[in-house]
C-alpha cells in the first residue's frame, strides 16, 4: 500500500510531543485510553481568546496512535473552540488512510480532543464563576 509522504512523516517525526502544566491558565487536558489495546493518549490545548494557540500530546501506543495524535495537534492549532469541536475521527482516518484495524486510534484522538475541550470549558466556567 502506498502512503503519502505526509503520513509517513507524521509517523516517523511526530509533531508537538510534550506537555503543558495542567493547572496553567487556558490549558485543557484530555486523557483517554483504548482498553482493547492498552494505548494511552494525553492531548492538551492552550487557549487564548477562544482560539487554540498551541497543542501538545503524549501518546503511549502504536505508530497509528502517535500519527493520529500528531495530526490532531497540528489541526487544532489556530482553530477556535467551535471549529475544534467539529474535528471527526473520520477526517483523521481519511487524511492518514488508516486501515480498519487501526480506526480505533483515530477514535482515540477524537475522544482526546473532546476531553481536552471539555476540560478547558470546565476550568473556564470554574474561573468565570469564581470571578463573579
Amino acid at each position, binding site marked *: 500500500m502506498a502512503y503519502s509522504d505526509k503520513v509517513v512523516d507524521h*509517523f516517523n517525526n511526530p509533531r508537538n510531543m510534550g506537555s503543558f502544566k495542567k493547572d496553567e491558565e487556558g490549558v485543557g487536558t484530555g486523557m483517554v485510553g483504548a482498553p482493547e489495546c492498552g494505548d494511552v493518549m494525553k492531548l492538551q490545548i492552550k487557549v487564548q481568546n477562544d482560539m487554540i494557540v498551541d497543542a501538545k500530546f503524549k501518546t503511549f501506543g502504536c505508530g497509528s496512535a502517535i500519527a493520529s495524535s500528531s495530526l490532531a495537534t497540528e489541526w487544532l492549532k489556530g482553530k477556535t473552540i467551535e471549529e475544534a469541536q467539529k474535528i471527526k475521527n*473520520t477526517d483523521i482516518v481519511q487524511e492518514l488512510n488508516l486501515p480498519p484495524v487501526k480506526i480505533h486510534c483515530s477514535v482515540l484522538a477524537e475522544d482526546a480532543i473532546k476531553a481536552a475541550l471539555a476540560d478547558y470549558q470546565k476550568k473556564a466556567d470554574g474561573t468565570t464563576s469564581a470571578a463573579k
Partner: protein
Amino acid sequence: MARIVGIDLGTTNSLVAYMENGRPRVIPGRNERAIVPSVVAMTDNGLIVGDAAKEHLTRNPERTVYSVKRFMGKGLADVQGELAYFPYSLTEQGGVIRIKLGEKTYSPPQISAMILKELKQRAEAHLGESITKAVITVPAYFNDSQRQATKDAGMIAGLEVLRIINEPTAASLAYGLQEKTQGTIAVYDFGGGTFDISILKLKNGIFEVLATNGDTHLGGDDIDRRIADLFLTEIRSRHGVDLSSHPDHMQTIRLEAERAKIGLSDALKIQVSIELPDNKGHFTRELTRDQLESLIMEIIERTLTPCRMALKDAGLSPDAIDEVVLVGGSTRMPIVRQRVQELFGKTPHCEINPDEVVALGAAVQADILSGGTTDMLLLDVTPLSLGIETMGGVMSSLIRRNTTIPASAKEMFTTYVDGQTGVDIHILQGERELAKDNRSLAKFRLKVPPLPAGVPRIEVTFLIDANGILSVKASDMRTGLSQSIEVKPSYGLSDHEVEQMIEDSFKFAKDDVNARKLIETRLDAGALITTTEKSLGDGLHLIAEEDVAAIRAALSALATAQEGNDPRAIRARIADLEQSAQRLTVAMLNDSLKRGLQGKKVSDIT
C-alpha cells in the same frame, strides 16, 4: 477410494510410502533402496532423476540440479547470498526463480515434479495400480508461498495433493502409531536444508500441535558447506590452487565433505582425499570428530533458539516435555543428539529410521484421509502470523502464529473518498513489525461499488485451510453478494502458468518418446522381476534344479539390462525371462488348481 500415497519430498532425499494392513511401509526401488536422491540431471538422453542423476553431480555440474527445495516459493533476491554455492544457473521470471538446464528454464516446482513423478512411477510399479493422489510433507516452518509451490509441483507431476502436512507432525504420527506415545512430545527435525521444532500433545489419538518454530534455510547442506569451505581454504594455502571457479571440483569437494560428515557420525576420525586438477596430485588430510564439531557448533546452536521459542509459545519449560523425537539425517550426528539431550534433559528417541519416519507419517495421514485410520487426528497450527500491511508500512496481525488450523479471520473494509471503487490489500506473513521485513504473500484490489465515503461495507475473510494455505473471500454486507478475489501471489506461479506446465509436462513426455519408452520398459522389467522372484520363492520345489538356475540367470541378466539405457535390450531380456519362467508358471498353476480342487466338494465343481 483410490489409494493415496505419502511422500516426503526432501531437500536431499525423497521417499514414497503407503499403508498396508495398518502399518506404513516405504516403497523400495529396483535397487531395493527406498531413498531417491532429490537430484535431477539433464543428459543427452533426456532428464534423469535420483541415483542415476546423482552420478552427474561431478560429471555434469551445470546441468544437474540438487537441493531445489531451497528455492521453492522464492524469488532470486531471497537466495542471493548462496548463489555462489550452486553450479547451475538461476534466473527469475514473474517473482519465481527459474533454473537453466540446457536450452530450457524450469521453475523449482517443475524440477520437484520430476522427482515426484519418479516416486509416483515407483509406487505404481510396486503396487501395480495407477497413483493419482498423494499427501506431501513440507517443513513446518514453510510459508504460504512455499506450500503453494509444493502443491503446484504435485499437480505438474499429475498428482492431486490431498494434503500438505508438516514434516515433524508427520513424524509424530509414525511414532504415535508405532510406539503408542502419550503426553507432551518435542519433535526435533534437522534435515538436509531445513530445521523444524514442533511441540505436540498426544492424548487419546489426538495429536495437537501446541507450537512450532524453525528455520527453512538451515540444514545438512550448511554443515557440508562449512566443511567444504575449510577444505577449499586449505587447498588454496597448501597447493596454491583456487578451486572455487571449477564447478566440477566444487561438487567433488562438497560430496567429500558430506562423506566425511556422515563417516564421523560413527568414526572418531576420517581420511579425506580430493584429487586436484592438472595432475597436481591429491589434497589429503585427517578430519577428527572434535574438529568437525567445533567447526559446526555455531550451526547446531542456531537450532536451539527456535526450540526455546517454541517452548515459550507453548507455555512450557523443557522439563514439561515427556519425550523428544529425532527426525532427519542431520540428527545422526552425535553432537546434535548431545545438544538436544542437554536442552530437554532427556535421551531423545530415534527408534524409527530418521530418513524414513516422515514418509511413513505421510502414509499414516494418507490413510486417515482415505478413511482407513479413524482413531487418529492431527490438529496442526500455522507456523507464521498472517496479517495485512497498515499505515506506515506496519504489519497488523489477523491470525497469530501457532493458531490451530483451519483458521479464519474477518476484517471489515470501507472507503475514504466518495465514489472510490477499490481498496488495495497487501497480505503478509511473518513475525516482524514492519511489512517490508515480512513475507509478501499477495496483493489484491478489493472491488467496491461507487458510493459515498464510508458507506460501502465489505467483509473480507482470510482463511487458512488444513494445508496451511491461504484463501481470501469477500462479501458486500449491504447486498449480501460475495465476490471472488483473484489473488496474485508475490512469489508463486499463477494458475495459468501451472496449467501450462502440466500441459508441457505431458507434451515433453510425448516429445521424448524414447525416454518414456525406457521408463515404461524399466517399470515392466521391475514388475516382472518382483513377481518372478516371488513365484520362485513359492514354487521352488515344483521345478527341476536346472530350471531354477536358468530362471536365476535370466533374472540377473534382466536386472543388468534394466540399469542400462536401451529399451530394446531390456525388452529382449524380459522375453528371455518369461521364456525361462514358463515351466515355473505352468507348474504353479497346476499346483494351485490341484489344491483348489482338494478343498472343494465335487458338487461345487460340477
